[in-house]
């Protein structure tokens, strides 16, 4: 997972490319229930992910991380923009093509207590994707489910148990096994460990990384926990109010954050030892209401370096590293 590619070549072979993706949730009101505004949950987001790499998506609560995941998984329809899977625009797919598409992108959900149907046994849960897509005979499916269960670090003996009989970590393993049943190419992990306690988090992350190598997965890893993102990601995107504010390789961004918001966010990583010297950047103003984002740079009311230009013009995402291969893009007027 951490293999860092510096050579070009396969850099342009993106498995997933997002272009200008927008999702605006309408706000309705008034007597006629007309649209009186919109929550711009995801606003003009573009990025590429290379095959077999992990993209970490970070940001505070409500910044649009999960909306982005749901858009890519086509659980909700975007307002505008395109998503390309190996060069195909997936938003154009319907019916059978959409079903086949679902085989390629799978999700690991945040809450292992809500993402498993309490009325299905572990075997049923993992077999369902195969059954629904008519893969294999019943007998072969059983074999495949067994393999998945064992690869996910679960015991085949527990196959007839129901979700409530498992611990949080075990449940998340079931969720991972279900997501991998269809051999997807892309795995979206929507805060897969935030509901687990720390020792279990490490186990699940290691499992995910092992399985990524084995299944040649491309992972979109959404988290608000930066130490987790540091462990798994090759590339990191920082989202703020539905927009990408900074985007770089893991090595670069964890070494030096450029955007003032990213600096504040990364300074919130807890110290690993009490003697470590660490400066904490505090933001005084509350995050803006998603109904009325500030004009210009959306971060300017909270930004310690805000200038006049920040209030008027919205900064564009620009590369400041000088190298296209190992880019460091930031949307800030300071650079």
């Amino acid at each position, binding site marked *: 997972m951490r293999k860092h590619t510096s050579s070009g070549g396969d850099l342009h072979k993106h498995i997933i490319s997002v272009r200008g993706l927008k999702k605006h949730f309408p706000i309705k009101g008034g007597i006629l229930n007309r649209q009186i505004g919109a929550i711009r949950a995801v606003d003009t987001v573009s990025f590429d992910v290379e095959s077999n790499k992990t993209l970490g998506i970070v940001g505070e609560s409500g910044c649009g991380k999960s909306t982005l995941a749901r858009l890519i998984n086509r659980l909700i329809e975007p307002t505008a923009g395109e998503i390309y899977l190996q060069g195909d625009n997936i938003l154009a797919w319907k019916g059978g093509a959409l079903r086949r598409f679902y085989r390629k992108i799978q999700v690991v959900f945040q809450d292992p207590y809500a993402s498993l149907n309490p*009325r299905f046994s572990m075997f049923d849960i993992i077999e369902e994707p195969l059954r629904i897509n008519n893969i294999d005979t019943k007998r072969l499916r059983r074999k495949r489910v067994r393999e998945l269960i064992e690869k996910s670090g679960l015991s085949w003996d527990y196959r007839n148990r*129901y979700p409530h009989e498992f611990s949080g970590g075990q449940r998340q393993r079931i969720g991972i096994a279900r997501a991998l049943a269809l051999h997807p190419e892309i795995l979206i992990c929507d805060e897969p460990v935030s509901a687990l306690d720390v020792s279990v988090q490490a186990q699940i992350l290691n499992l995910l990384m092992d399985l990524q190598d084995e299944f040649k997965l491309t992972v979109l890893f959404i988290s608000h926990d930066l130490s987790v993102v540091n462990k798994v990601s090759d590339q990191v995107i920082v989202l703020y109010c539905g927009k990408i504010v900074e985007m770089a390789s893991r090595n670069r961004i964890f070494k030096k954050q450029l955007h003032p918001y990213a600096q504040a966010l990364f300074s919130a990583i807890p110290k690993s030892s009490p003697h470590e010297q660490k400066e904490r950047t505090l933001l005084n103003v509350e995050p803006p209401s998603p109904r009325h984002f500030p004009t210009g740079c959306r971060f300017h009311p909270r930004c310690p370096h805000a200038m006049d230009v920040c209030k008027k013009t919205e900064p564009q995402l620009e590369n400041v590293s000088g190298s296209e291969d190992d880019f460091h893009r930031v949307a800030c007027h300071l650079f």
Partner: protein
Amino acid sequence: MAILNPILSKRWENFKKIRRGYYSLIILIVTYLVALGAELWVNNKPLVVYYQGTYYYPVFFFYSGETFGEDYIAEAQYKEIRDRPAFKDNPDNVMLFPFIPYGYNESDDNLNASPPTVPDSRHWLGTDDRGRDLLTRLIYGYRVSLSFALVVLVLSTIVGVAIGAVQGYCAGVLDLICQRVIEVVSALPFLYLLILLASIFDPSITLLVIIFCAFRWIGLSYFMRAEFLRGRKIEYVEAARSIGVSRVGIMARHILPNTITPIITLAPFSVAASIGLLSSLDFLGFGVPAPTASWGEILSQAHANLTSYHLSVFPLICLFITLLLVSFVGEAVREAFDPKAYFRYKG
């Protein structure tokens, strides 16, 4: 209880602990099964006839009058045949009648007073105004009431679940339109409409079932709509969608099994309401068609014959006990399904 999932079997255990409801359910089931086999023990046809060296089983098979030397081909009148000299003279001929030897639509011609007669050793609960045995009418009436209530329950549950599920899962405009239609339908006065329809069409049990179902599903559909509105947003439903499960599959396999609480909790109360309503319709004369045994019909006779106490007392007792038992079951089910019980420690 292996087929049930653990939560449901836990609830079944909880239900069994509530003795009043559990025993009420057992009594209702046993009496209903006994009443279903009423032809075997309450009937004016004999169980076995031994006639001229052959055995006959009139409860199960049809025999014309000619079989027993009568001059008609309609069904044999066994009580008449029994009293014929041709039958009586041969001591080998035997007719074994059920425990209560009266049919639900059989007038007793040998009453020593004009009907309705009061209870005596011949008719334990007396007879109605056409000389029919009251106990027999009550037993057959119990069967009719409960069967009717159960059929209405099953059909209206299917309709209510289907409509509520589609509304809740699809939400949006479809939900809005359906909800307005439901409000219109539920604003119609049920009893008046029923009386109106019953007087236009020939009254039949099928018609009654249809009319009852046309109104009964509404209450349940509200609950199902709410459950499905909640259910469609649960993560495991999204997970199901992202592995490519169809809409119907999600509704039937993923959401529905997790929404049986309102279905089961409402069921006993629906049964009680149907029994009560059917009785009141029968009382008014708009219920089941004429010869069918029914409690409400006996009560309307009681209204016409106020001096015959047995016509009002016995059906009322039956009605009261049945509704009480059903309500006990309903109360116990509701308690067994109470989610708060999970958070309570046992003392």
